[in-house]
């Protein structure tokens, strides 16, 4: 794979006791491109995500993130909140994790925590209401307002996030991740539970994030219409290993992918396995 690589995953492994969830997985994600990670249920996609975003410590392998300025960051060495704070990797969750008791606007304000913490002089400047803090807060609200406008939720800015319809919550979670101003956005099944119209709107939003914000996207998705429409590159996983990768067209026609998704006769499966390894 040529071009500008933002994330290079090299022989990533993750074991839980005796179970190998991810086995020596290697792939690369290009800058300002949408890379999709697909595979049947239980293939280990979310585990890969959790490794990249610091929720799991991988058992082996490395993940190198390269920023615009050429700075390299080894993600496996960072943990927890530092992935988002220092490496600028943001993520959403398969089962939406908004702050349900806070308003849509507040959700987007919490996402700007680290920037605002600095602006508030670690709270002390903010406590005395320093002008520099006030302008920073205003800017943060402006950024949040822009995102609310973009996802069409400006009218519901002051509603509790838990009261929003499902589709709106999905989009709000993406907006919240974007408010951390990430370099790489990891989306875990953003189209799950959306209807066709909402899926189409989501595709448009993701393309605009890629093109207008210049953010690279790594995406887990089951909805093939979304994957095929917006992905620049597709990586297919099954049983913790990569079984195929390429453009959406290539992947769609790959017999191993079809076998993984649809199942095959036993002989056929053996043939596929042999040709694969």
């Amino acid at each position: 794979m040529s071009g500008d690589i933002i994330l290079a995953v090299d022989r990533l492994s993750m074991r839980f006791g005796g179970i190998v969830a991810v086995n020596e997985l290697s792939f690369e994600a290009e800058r300002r491109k949408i890379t999709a990670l697909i595979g049947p249920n239980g293939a280990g996609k979310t585990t890969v995500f959790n490794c990249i975003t610091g929720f799991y410590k991988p058992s082996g392998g490395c993940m190198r993130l390269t920023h615009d300025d050429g700075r390299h960051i080894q993600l496996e060495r960072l943990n927890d909140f530092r992935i988002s704070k220092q490496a600028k990797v943001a993520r959403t969750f398969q089962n939406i994790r908004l702050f349900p008791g806070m308003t849509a606007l507040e959700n987007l304000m919490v996402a700007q925590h680290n920037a605002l913490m600095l602006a508030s002089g670690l709270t002390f400047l903010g406590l005395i209401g320093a002008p520099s803090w006030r302008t920073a807060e205003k800017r943060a609200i402006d950024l949040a307002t822009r995102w609310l406008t973009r996802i069409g939720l400006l009218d519901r800015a002051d509603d509790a996030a838990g009261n929003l319809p499902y589709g709106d919550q999905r989009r709000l979670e993406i907006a919240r991740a974007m408010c951390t101003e990430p370099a790489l956005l990891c989306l875990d099944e953003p189209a799950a539970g959306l209807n066709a119209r909402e899926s189409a709107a989501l595709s448009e939003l993701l393309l605009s994030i890629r093109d207008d914000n210049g953010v690279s996207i790594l995406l887990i998705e089951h909805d093939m219409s979304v994957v095929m429409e917006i992905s620049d590159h597709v990586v297919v996983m099954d049983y913790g290993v990569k079984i195929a990768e390429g453009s959406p067209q290539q992947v769609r026609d790959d017999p191993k992918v079809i076998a993984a998704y649809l199942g095959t006769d036993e002989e056929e499966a053996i043939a596929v396995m042999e040709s694969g390894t």
Partner: protein
Amino acid sequence: MTAPASDPKHASRGPGAAFIFKKALISALVALVLFSLMIGIRTEAGPTGQLIYWTRFGDLAAMVATVFFGSIVVELLRLWWGPVGTVRIVPPQLQSGLAVARRAIAPVLLIFTFLVPVIFYDQRYILDLGILVLTYVMLGWGLNVVVGLAGLLDLGYVAFYAVGAYSYALLATNFGLSFWICLPLAGILAALWGVMLGFPVLRLRGDYLAIVTLAFGEIIRLVIINWQSLTGGPNGVSGIPRPTLFGIPLTPGDDGLAARLGIEFSPTHRIVFLFYLILALALLTNWVTIRLRRLPIGRAWEALREDEVACRALGINITTTKLTAFATGAMFGGFAGAFFATRQGFISPESFTFQESALVLAIVVLGGMGSQLGVALAALAMIGGFELFRGLDQFRMLVFGIAMVLLMIWRPRGLIGHRAPTVFLRHSQAISSDLVKEGHG
């Protein structure tokens, strides 16, 4: 009176008569089993040491009947008032009136509190009670930061109260430092202990967190009891200096405030001064908390209560967020402790038992977790109400307990259960308590 047809919960109308009857019967049965030995049979040691007993089936029957009918009454009350989520039989006019009253209640209460020393100048009892209530308001607001905002269940809050009180008492009696120097020191020391408690409990949640904080409170108390050389052990610290009005003592002497102002000395001056002092401290707590909620740190606390995993994904440092919550809450506890020491003039470990922690936590929970006004109202109801029932003698605890149970049925999420947003674009609208998480440690 019917509810609007759009209300989806309209269908979930309360239970029927058979259900209520059955429930009352079960309650009565439990009461019969429980009380048959406790009340039904009375045993005593006879004159020669033998066991004599007699039965009191009349009392037992009365008790069981009370439980039976009480259970029916409670169920009926639930039907009428209803917990959150059931249909309310309150006319809309009354509801809008209540909304106006609700907005006015905070300023009215504040003005009234300012006027209390003027109105009740001659009534020492009322003033003392006012000081006590305000102390608990302040403690409640302090604990509210930890429990209400950050969602960390802290059963050892009294430890910080004790640290504050002993900090002032020891600094003042040993080094002669004045109250106004010791006050911030007491706050800082308590905050340090808050961080010390915070570190070991960072990974704990829910019940486990509660148990460790409970143990922490007991450890502090036991250390105070056993470290005789420093704290005087169970004898406590006495002769703690009274506060001065920026160096001017409130004493009958020539350099006292009364002599300087040329008015006649009265011991009430000191009480009034203490009243305004604790009022100022409580208002400071309130002001700081309200401001903190609108700052990133306060939003991070609330976000932590809502969803810790999402916080981590957004790059929020969970460790510092939890520690700052513990430290901030502890600091206010320390201030209140220093005030307690200077007010009493004498402190001993007896003042810092688990019961105090439980009382403050009850105030926060009854008030509605996270609500400043709710906590103030709950403190007033708990401390003031307890005094109100003083005439009932031994039934005081019983009446008080019933009142608390009724309140929790009527308002399961506290007096003021809804949450006010910290920032808004067009209009601020309260968030229903159904959506707000309680936190899990």
